[in-house]
């Protein structure tokens, strides 16, 4: 999916915008000239939307570190610049960040970091506010889309004033919540003199870098003063003096709703902490309670100042803090809440557990054949990676054994090869990685496998897009962020250049199960590295072409269940029966049908069907339900 350009609504418009959309508008209004990102939930739509605006450069970078480096380069060239990433992306970009704090910026530089509070689509729930402390940089935290717009605008000026990149810390409930935003007008600012050579500032060798350290601490002192007086840090009065709340981000809205009569210190600049305002609130109330998503961070810092505060002794250690969670856990401080919990108006308990509905691979997904094949192999350990294909860990395939972070499948597979014990001597090590993840952080790992003679079979699943985040373009798609023609990487050549012998590089069609099975069986036997590249596009992108659907001949289906093992969501079991085999063994039969309205004719299920019970479906008049 490429960004569609549009005419930006005029200044003064009131629009229903997600936090991500509001930030994109602010990036444009702030006159940013360079914006870069790698897709990652919940941050993806920021750059998707930025790229819709005219007169700025936007790119999908291959990873977050590169995106930050692009932004740094643009900043020191005098342009306002921006990059966006999900929380774990800043781990990747941290190497750049930790020295950027020494150099500072020229054009304002804002780094939007989106934490996945609540684990909607991530491998951890790390709290990005720590980066402010680690890198001595200001953290700004909006509480809704309007604030996201205003704070992003302010962050650029702030960055230039304090010569510091600003971390705009977001969470899912900012990125993906839509509310009304009044937008302003665009103003392009740029440093007139372009890049100015200054090795003492831009060449961070030890002698130069250590001279920057006092400046960082001087800047932090100035930031503390700014935070102490900033209008973004607001003490809101309240008549109920039992508890005063200190909070930031979406938690502020939750606190306001749950305790409308309580005084609240709302932190827009949540680092450095304005301790003067904390003390001011403390003087007004009996108890200070810190509500933070997610870690106990402000609370610890406030207590270190000798100010008594509560928070995580009452509240959950992780996850979101919506009003009903706050009310439940803070009832010891608000006795009237206990009475409310017993009243007739209290919510019903959750219903009898309903089956889980985990995400599944799509109908005709090219990964289906890969995981079906992997599930049929014996004696394999499969190192997985981050992407749609992580779903291969689930039913019916159960064919993925590890997931840690972007690109980890490569190094971990090599480590499992080198670290194997006597029990694993006969095991074959397979690594599975997608095109985007391979380009993000997998290429170096493959080079390491080749260099160190790893006995690893790599499956490089090239579906020509960043699938899990909704189908963004990348160097495998051959298009840039605006949908214009760009480089299309040749994976076979890259893999060969990284040291894989040409006879152990295979490019194959993952819909052809016998070829996939034969190639995989041969390559796991090869004592050395090999790479199998699959080449079908993701079914969600334009390159994918639907074929006529199939149906099951009911009378011919023998209930063998082979097709069910493919894991296609268009195949449904209609009935189960027990049967006795001639050998006397009891088996369970699963008779199936194919939801022809959903089937797109990939033909994977035909291949393991023993009785040839699947045939082209008769045409139907009604349009499909899922589009």
């Amino acid at each position: 999916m490429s960004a569609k350009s549009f005419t930006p609504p005029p200044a003064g418009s009131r629009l229903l915008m997600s936090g991500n959309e509001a930030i994109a508008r602010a990036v444009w209004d702030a006159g940013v000239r360079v914006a870069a990102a790698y897709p990652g939930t919940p941050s993806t739509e920021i750059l998707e939307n930025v790229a819709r605006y005219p007169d700025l450069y936007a790119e999908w970078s291959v990873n977050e570190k590169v995106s930050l480096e692009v932004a740094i380069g643009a900043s020191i060239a005098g342009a306002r610049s921006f990059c966006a990433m999900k929380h774990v992306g800043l781990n990747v970009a941290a190497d750049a960040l930790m020295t950027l704090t020494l150099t500072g910026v020229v054009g304002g530089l804002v780094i939007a970091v989106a934490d996945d509070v609540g684990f909607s689509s991530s491998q951890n729930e790390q709290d990005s506010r720590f980066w402010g402390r680690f890198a001595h940089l200001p953290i700004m935290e909006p509480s809704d889309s309007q604030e996201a717009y205003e704070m992003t605008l302010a962050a650029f000026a702030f960055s230039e004033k304090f010569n510091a990149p600003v971390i705009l810390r977001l969470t899912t409930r900012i990125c993906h919540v839509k509310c009304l935003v009044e937008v302003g007008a665009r103003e392009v600012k740029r440093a007139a003199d372009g890049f100015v050579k200054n090795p003492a500032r831009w060449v961070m060798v030890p002698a130069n870098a250590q001279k920057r350290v006092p400046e960082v601490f001087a800047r932090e002192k100035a930031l503390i003063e700014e935070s102490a007086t900033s209008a973004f840090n607001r003490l809101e009065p309240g008549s109920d003096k039992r508890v005063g709340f200190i909070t930031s981000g979406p938690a502020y809205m939750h606190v306001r709703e749950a305790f409308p009569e309580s005084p609240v210190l709302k932190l827009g600049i949540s680092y450095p902490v304005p301790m003067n305002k904390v003390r001011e609130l403390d003087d007004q109330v009996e108890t200070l309670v810190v509500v933070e998503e997610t870690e106990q961070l402000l609370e610890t810092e406030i207590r270190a100042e000798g100010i008594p505060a509560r928070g995580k002794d009452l509240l959950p250690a992780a996850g979101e803090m919506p009003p009903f969670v706050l009310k439940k856990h803070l009832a010891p401080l608000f006795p009237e809440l206990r009475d409310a919990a017993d009243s007739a108006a209290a919510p019903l308990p959750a219903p009898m557990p309903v089956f889980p509905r985990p995400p599944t691979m799509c109908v005709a997904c090219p990964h289906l054949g890969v995981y079906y094949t992997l599930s049929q192999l014996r004696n394999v350990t499969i190192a997985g990676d981050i992407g749609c294909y992580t779903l291969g860990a689930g039913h019916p395939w159960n064919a993925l054994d590890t997931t840690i972070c972007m690109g980890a499948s490569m190094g971990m597979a090599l480590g499992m090869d080198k670290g194997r014990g006597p029990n694993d001597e006969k095991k074959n090590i397979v690594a599975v990685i997608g095109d985007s993840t391979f380009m993000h952080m997998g290429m170096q790992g493959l080079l390491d496998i080749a260099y160190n003679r790893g006995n690893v079979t790599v499956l490089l699943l090239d579906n020509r897009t960043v699938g899990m985040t909704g189908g963004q373009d990348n160097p495998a798609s051959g298009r840039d962020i605006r949908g214009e023609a760009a480089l299309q990487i040749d994976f076979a050549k890259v893999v060969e250049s990284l040291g894989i012998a040409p006879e152990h590089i295979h490019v194959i069609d993952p819909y052809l199960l016998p070829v996939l099975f034969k190639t995989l069986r041969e390559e796991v036997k090869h004592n050395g590295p090999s790479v199998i590249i699959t080449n079908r596009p993701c079914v969600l992108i334009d390159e994918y072409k639907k074929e006529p659907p199939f149906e099951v001949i009911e009378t011919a289906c023998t209930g063998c269940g082979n097709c069910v093992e493919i894991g296609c969501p268009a195949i449904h079991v209609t009935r189960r029966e027990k049967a006795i085999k001639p050998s006397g063994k009891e088996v369970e039969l699963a008779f199936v049908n194919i939801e022809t309205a959903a089937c797109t004719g990939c033909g994977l299920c035909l291949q393991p069907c023993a009785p040839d019970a699947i045939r082209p479906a008769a045409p139907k008049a009604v349009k499909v339900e899922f589009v």
Partner: protein
Amino acid sequence: MNQSQTTNILVVGVGGQGVMTASEILSEAAISQGFDVKKTEVAGMSQRGGVVSSHVRFGTTVLSPEIPPGEADILVGFEAAEAMRWSHYLRQKNGASGGVAMINRLKLEPPIVSLGLFAYPDDPVAAVRARGLEVHDFDAGEIARELGDLRLVNTIMLGAISDNLPFPAVTLKECIVARFAAKKPELGELNAKAFELGKAAGKK
């Protein structure tokens, strides 16, 4: 508490059913009436057939975007078991102010049910009703099929709840018709028809 001034609508279903479009249209209609609106989803990897729940809240001022359990005025279930999963979000019947569940009878079995690992509830609609909640249910797919396009389920479900909103049903209808007519004039007419059929079905 300011809850009484806020209207809470929880739209639930399965990824790909149009839950987020429905809540987007509801939000637009509420904005056109001068309400403050917040809309939020829990839809992690929903494009892959997972659970989607979309919260729409509107009123004078909306603070938290999330509807607390027990405070939804309307539960719009695009799928029967999903309506059951979220039924505790509806406001309990307490005098006349209980919440209303509007449920499409469609049953979508996920692969893990098909694989025999979990059972699909026998009658999710009856299970919601048995909790003492006001439930209306009908087969929105059947109406959509008669109109020739299953994608109309979305508009039919919105029509079904249109008499339970704090603004006239016609406001919502106009929002929908304008949205689809902008794509193709005949789509506007088709959606108007779907809306009215949904409105009638929701009274049952």
